[in-house]
């Protein structure tokens, strides 16, 4: 196999030559990646592979680079599921040193495929223990976020009904035809909401709950974008699209985001969170097996749970920190919801049943 590849590689160097040559028109596009080959022995580059939602403030990252002496290269590809699957496919010959973006719904798949090398980060003691799900430290928790039903405050004020607070509320007749959710097969919040019902009603009871939800007129769309920006009446996008569902499955951090990106910023969030409907997602990072720069990878992992990064994170990725003493920005404390008791399902249980739950859910709700 490998000789074939090398032969093909050599034979086709010419073809590539043409491509590269002509591609030089791309100007400084080359500049940022040339340093990332990781092959030169003295390379001080450490590569972080993640999904499209990863974000960090430049100055925070620069500070890490200055202190550690490493240059960080960030690669993003696809959503969380696709990004992880790409890592599984390239197991043993990874594209980077650290992968960030496995959540608890996918954790077992990542661990079973053995793509990570154990490493206990400096500062693990500061991480809230309930998030340290892998005792072998193949993965380290980095952030958490809650998938919850959001409601349109204006709608419920207008109608003079109290917004729903719990999963049980959602099947009540006063909330008939108000909720829009996402396809559990293709959308991360959709799956989270399904798991919330599993956590609450058990592996048997959830189907019954969904039958009632369906009878109560739940609408299912394929992705979060359609649900939130088109169908939901409380969001800025949904208002323009004349969305008429005042309840949507989204994130606990969505109200602060509505405030942050409002123009002008409203004094109060236009939407609220039904805190009794939540499923908590925890995102992990790990050192990839076969990493070219293991030392750098370790340093980067340490950085991901450092207070500096943890406090930068909320406004970059709209998630909550996992270290105890990290302070939340005012935006979150003012407009965000505190979810005391999210529903929970163990990663192994999710891994074992996920496909079958999704299938059962699809035939129950979608077909």
């Amino acid at each position, binding site marked *: 196999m490998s000789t074939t590849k090398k032969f093909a590689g050599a034979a086709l160097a010419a073809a590539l030559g043409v491509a590269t040559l002509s*591609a030089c028109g791309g100007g400084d596009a080359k500049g940022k990646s040339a340093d990332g080959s990781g092959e030169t022995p003295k390379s001080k580059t450490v590569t972080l592979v993640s999904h499209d939602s990863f974000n960090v403030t430049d100055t925070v990252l620069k500070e890490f680079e200055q202190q550690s002496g490493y240059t960080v290269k960030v690669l993003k590809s696809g959503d969380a599921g696709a990004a992880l699957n790409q890592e599984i496919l390239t197991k043993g010959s990874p594209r980077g040193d650290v992968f960030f973006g496995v959540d608890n719904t996918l954790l077992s798949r990542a661990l079973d495929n053995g793509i990570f090398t154990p490493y206990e980060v400096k500062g693990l003691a500061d991480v809230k223990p309930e998030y340290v799900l892998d005792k072998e430290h193949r993965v380290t928790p980095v952030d958490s976020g809650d998938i919850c039903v959001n409601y349109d405050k204006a709608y419920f004020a207008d109608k003079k009904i109290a917004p729903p607070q719990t999963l049980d509320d959602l099947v009540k007749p006063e909330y008939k035809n108000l909720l829009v959710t996402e396809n559990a097969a293709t959308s991360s919040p959709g799956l989270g909401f399904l798991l919330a019902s599993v956590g609450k009603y058990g592996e048997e009871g959830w189907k019954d709950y969904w039958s009632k939800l369906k009878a109560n007129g739940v609408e299912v769309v394929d992705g979060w974008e359609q649900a939130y920006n*088109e169908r939901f009446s409380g969001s800025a996008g949904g208002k323009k699209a*004349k969305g008429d569902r005042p309840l949507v499955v989204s994130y606990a951090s969505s109200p602060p985001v509505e405030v942050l990106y409002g123009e002008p910023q409203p004094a109060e969030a236009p939407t609220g969170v039904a805190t009794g409907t939540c499923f908590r997602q925890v995102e992990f990072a790990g050192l990839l097996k076969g990493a070219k720069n293991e030392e750098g990878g370790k340093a980067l992992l340490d950085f991901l749970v450092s207070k500096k990064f943890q406090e930068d994170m909320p406004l970059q990725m709209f998630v909550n920190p996992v270290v105890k003493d990290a302070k939340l920005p005012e935006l979150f404390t003012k407009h965000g919801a505190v979810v005391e008791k999210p529903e929970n399902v163990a990663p192994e249980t999710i891994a074992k049943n996920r496909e079958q739950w999704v299938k059962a859910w699809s035939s129950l709700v979608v077909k």
Partner: protein
Amino acid sequence: MVLARREVGRESARGTAVRLLLMAVPLAFFGLFFAYPVAAIVGRGIKTDEGWQFGRIGEVLARPDIADVLWFTTWQAFASTALTLLIALPGAYVFARFEFPGKQLLRAVVTVPFVLPTVVVGTAFLALVGRGGLLDELWGVRLDTTVWAILLAHVFFNYAVVVRTVGGLWAQLDPRQEEAARVLGAGRFAAWRRVTLPALGPAVAAASLMVFLFTFTSFGVVQILGGPSYATLEVEVYRQTAQLLDLPTAAVLTMVQFVAVGLILGIHAWTVRRRETALRLVDPARTAHRPSGPGQRALLGGVLLTVALLIVAPLAVLVERSLDAPGGYGFGFYRALQDVGAGGGTFLVPPLEAIWNSLQYALAATAIALVIGGLAAAALTRRGGRFVRGFDALLMLPLGVSAVTVGFGFLITLDEPPLDLRTSWILVPLAQALVGVPFVVRTMLPVLRAVDGRLREAAAVLGASPLRAWREVDLPLVRRALLIAAGFAFAVSLGEFGATVFIARPDRPTLPVAVARLLGRAGEMNYGQAMALSTILMLVCAVSLLVLERLRPDKTSGEF
């Protein structure tokens, strides 16, 4: 004449050598960046330690959910194609035979959807047929999450394919042939049916097959508009690969789609060859006239109304939303694109940078597509045997293979030096070029074939070396086609989303990726900027297409 053709045939010994040499680069390109990755990922799915598991093919195909997908994929493609023809054929006629103000602009406008990313189109289209959309407001009609939304969106996307392919030929058919039939006693309709329709037949067939191909492999439209109840093969391949990592199922589905697409392309190649039979073509400018009489005016009006409703309206809604800034209509969202750090200091993507990234990637992809496609077209210019024809079709295959298959294939193949490109920025333009090459070849080939070989001979006799003859004769004659091909490759690269988003890239999002990210976040400014960026993307595409309209070579029909 007979003599000349025989002589060309005779020379083919040397010609074949040159052709093979020219073809080596495109062949290597497709082998390395398409065939090998796709074969590897399919192989990963159906080969285990115990060898090939061909039994899996039967197992997967026997699953009822997969059967549903196959059935839906096929019938919606047929229905979409039929509906597109029904709606677009009158348009093809009007664009071909009528002269009216704004025709060039409108022809560019109807082509815009074709090069727009589906994320943008989905959003725009929902605004038309979705809740609170135009149809809803006017007549209370809502089509989102019904199959009608999918079908109409397919018409929206492919209207231009029919108008350009069929209309391009229609405009060049000599109307005097129909007149001759009338003089010979045929009624108006009989003349059309017996003279024009047979001449148009192959073009209609070719356009239908292209529409069928595009709708059979439809991804974004089905995902966004279909809701969770509808899935095409392409959507299912994506789900099985990217979400579930069920490679065996994905491999079987990829192969099924591959066979289907191969079949479609085979039939297409066959109809195109038939189309090459001599038709009496004339300058399109001579066949078009101002509409006269109530019948023709009604037809023109009907077509304009259809275009307005189906194509202009969704695009217009997009623009409207991008201008609907807080505090009244204006360029608030556009201004926001410039000040990084506004609205709380955390923009996901500095949006202007995304535009710049997109342009760079698209330029690189265009350059690659031009080199590869140009060489392939040059190699294919001299009509050769079956082998060459097969190559022609081969170039179209990337259009029928899921971007996620190619993207994941890259991961497991291009992973060793000297070709460890997995983390290189070049992978993005390479993947985009795969989609651009077919357009380059299809634009260049007819023009290159139309260059009379004896012009080259004339130049040679006058003292021009072969290279000089190519520079002095071929190049000036195909320069416009080359520009048009470049423009199409550029527009297609600019809007490419599927492959780009799956390829690990240093954090340099392109416009469509940035739009998707902005849409993936709550908040008015994010949404508004997504609309503004989409509008910019649309304008860039529209402007390049408008420029192309002006460059359209008068003797070749612009087609897809």
